[in-house]
């Protein structure tokens, strides 16, 4: 008798996986034909759309869907900003990778170039393909130049960051580096919205309460950036709320609990509606500017409650012995928290944070409905009413396009979050 297990033949595989029992066979046939039918209809839908020119609606409105009514002469600002941000992200990624290399914890150590390439393709191939699809729909060279320069800037940033990351820097240099890294996004924001540069953004539409900042911030750009802004801005608030809820000081605990539970009990859509119609009653007009700002403020305050609960879970996951060890070293409570508990807690909650980001990214579509911002979804429903496309039932094509973009973004991020979860060993340590 041989001890090696023979690889099951195809027939065995089919019998085991498709026709184990009669019921199994029926399920296979029913769901298999259903699945094939859906795939057939899907392919037919996409292909016949090309034949009948039904995708023309996306082609014609691509700029509107991506950046809304942003003035054409100012598109250069978006291009420059994207390139700068790519450089910035490249530097950050490079620094992280360089540090891992220095400490010997790098996950790409020992991989061949081929393996790295296939790894990157598996992770970001979908996004790249989507980007190429979008680029192939454009008529002008601008987007191509933007993406290429962003790519080049990202690679340069990655190299610079890698160079910085492997080195021990004097403390003042690394502090300066941190300041520069924080300043870059703020600078980009000011540059994007600045009314003082040549070709200022035109005054907002008449319905807008105030022009600056962010009056014309629409399209997919709005969905992406407002979710990012919401998650970044809500983090400090959420952290404070989590610490407050865990604190032994009753008053702080009470305030935190009331805030967290009230916000978590309220639907985001209702809060956005309130921000739309009743914010100006509560704050002076200068503080309640454009609808985009209102949306971002609402996202921030809303997400903070959820972040607080996530961070609280992270704090609970740190063993008490860690804090006690800090105490034994004679650290003050603040230092115990800052140097010992928080780093471990925050590391543990990174995947959950990404999950929250995905959920906020999807929820940014609510702002389109509640506040009348022309985001990707609102834009897609609006373009089906254009004279050229009205009454042809193109809403399905438009929604498929919108859904595809959101899906690619969320799917890639959730895959990355799962990968990170494995890498960090959450729940297994």
């Amino acid at each position, binding site marked *: 008798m041989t001890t090696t297990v023979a690889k099951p033949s195809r027939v065995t595989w089919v019998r085991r996986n498709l026709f184990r029992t009669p019921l199994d066979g029926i399920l296979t046939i029913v769901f*298999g034909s259903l699945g094939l039918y859906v795939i057939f209809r899907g392919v037919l839908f996409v292909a016949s759309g090309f034949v009948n020119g039904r995708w023309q609606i996306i082609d014609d409105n691509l700029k509107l869907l991506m950046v809304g009514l942003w003035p054409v002469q100012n598109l250069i600002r978006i291009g420059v900003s994207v390139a700068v941000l790519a450089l910035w992200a490249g530097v950050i990624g490079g620094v992280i990778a360089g540090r891992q290399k220095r400490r010997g914890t790098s996950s790409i150590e020992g991989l061949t170039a081929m393996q790295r390439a296939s790894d990157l393709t598996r992770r970001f191939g979908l996004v790249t393909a989507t980007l190429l699809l979008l680029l192939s729909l454009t008529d002008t060279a601008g987007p191509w130049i933007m993406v290429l320069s962003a790519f080049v800037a990202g690679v340069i940033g990655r190299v610079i960051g890698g160079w910085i990351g492997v080195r021990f820097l004097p403390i003042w240099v690394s502090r300066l580096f941190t300041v520069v890294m924080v300043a870059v996004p703020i600078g980009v924001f000011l540059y994007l919205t600045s009314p003082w540069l040549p070709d200022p953004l035109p005054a907002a539409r008449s319905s807008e309460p105030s022009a600056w900042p962010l009056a014309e911030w629409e399209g997919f750009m709005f969905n992406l950036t407002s979710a990012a802004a919401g998650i970044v801005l809500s983090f400090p608030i959420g952290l404070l709320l989590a610490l407050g809820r865990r604190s032994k000081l009753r008053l702080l605990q009470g305030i935190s609990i009331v805030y967290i539970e009230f916000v978590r009990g309220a639907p985001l859509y209702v809060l956005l509606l309130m921000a739309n119609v009743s914010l100006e009653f509560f704050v002076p007009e200068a503080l309640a500017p454009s609808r985009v700002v209102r949306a971002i403020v609402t996202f921030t305050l809303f997400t903070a409650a959820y972040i607080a609960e996530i961070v609280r879970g992270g704090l609970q996951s740190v063993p008490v012995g860690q804090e006690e060890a800090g105490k034994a070293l004679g650290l003050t409570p603040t230092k115990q928290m800052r140097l010992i508990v928080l780093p471990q807690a925050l590391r543990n909650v990174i995947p959950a944070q990404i999950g929250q980001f995905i959920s906020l990214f999807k929820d940014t*579509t609510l702002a389109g409905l509640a506040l009348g911002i022309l985001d990707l979804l609102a834009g897609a429903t609006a373009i089906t009413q254009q004279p050229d496309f009205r009454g042809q039932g193109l809403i399905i094509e438009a929604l498929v396009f919108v859904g595809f973009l*959101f899906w690619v973004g969320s799917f890639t991020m959730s895959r990355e979050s799962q990968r990170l979860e494995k890498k960090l060993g959450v729940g297994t340590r």
Partner: protein
Amino acid sequence: MAASPSPPKLTSSMTTPTPEQRVPFWRNVSFLKWLFQLVVFAIVAAVAIWLYNNFRNNTAESGIPTNFNFLTNPASFDIPGADFAPTERFQNAFVIGVLNTIRVSIVGIILATILGILIGIGRLSKNWVVRKISTVYVEIIRNLPLLVIMTFTFLGVVLQLLPRIENSWTPLDLLVISNRGIGVPWYQDTSGLALFLVLLVGLIGWWLIARWRHRVSDRTGQPSHGGLIGGAFFLLVLVVGWLLLGASFTTPVVDGRQIAGGIRVDPSFFAVLIALVIYTASHIAEIVRGSIQAVPAGQGEAASALALSGFQRLWNVVLPQAMRIAIPPLGNQYLNLIKNSSLGAGFAYFELTNVTQVTVGNGSPAVPAFFLALVFYIALSLITSAFVNLANRRFKLVER
């Protein structure tokens, strides 16, 4: 010096302090803690007062009322699909809105749970086709915004794919499917109360029979068949109740531009419900899958060793233990579904948010109206999570 002076104790519980040992108040930790709390509280209170003052001043300036008197004004709008006259008061509209929110939430929770459990089990099926289809469903739906799905079910499916009322589909002459609504056969409606009573009697009977059969089964070791016998009793009660109520039913027919007879499912309700179910089911499926995987594999193997069938293993051994793990995250999904039902406002479904929006649009003050809506939502959330906690306590494993 032999011993250095002991550091001053920081708690107030020190024993008979001599005056020079007493800690000055600005270094007393418990005092500092209180001071810190008071400062934070003062800041929060100051912000709240500032907001409230702004609100008072702004509303006084523009003469907008800040009380709830608007609730007794005539609504002067219509609610399709409800017995509501425009002359009725706003508060009645609010009640209808709350009831509609509850209606879509309850139906949605039940359907999403069933679909989610099926798909969650499907993801772990040994059948390759079922496994792949479930995985693709979950991975696609979970990563789409709910609003995109709801826009699709409303603008795409209901308003576009469903036929106009003139050429509606009438399969078997039992259903009427059109974009004006979906007609379903229904018993001749005398009053909703009678139906409710019949259902209540049936359900209580089902529960009692299941309990009785369980006891018998525990005593004698015979199979209990509690679900089968109870379900049969439930059906019996329904049939008897229907016979007692006059044994009549109506089928929907197209009458001009309306559906007459039967019961009409509002197209917006249909679209909102389907979107909520499809979306929430994908999340529930992930929870169910995770919970089943969290049940120790030995449990299923033990069931197989006892020669239980595949269904028995799942239904009697694995699922009960999995659902115990799944209750808290399931509760979160139910809360999400209730809150997400507010999106129905964008698709002409008259639930709470929509009623509030229309009320404000008809000249009622925005702040009190939305405040009222928020209070309702938070109350609904609290009630639901109270039920979830109750279920969790009831089914939780009792440990030491």
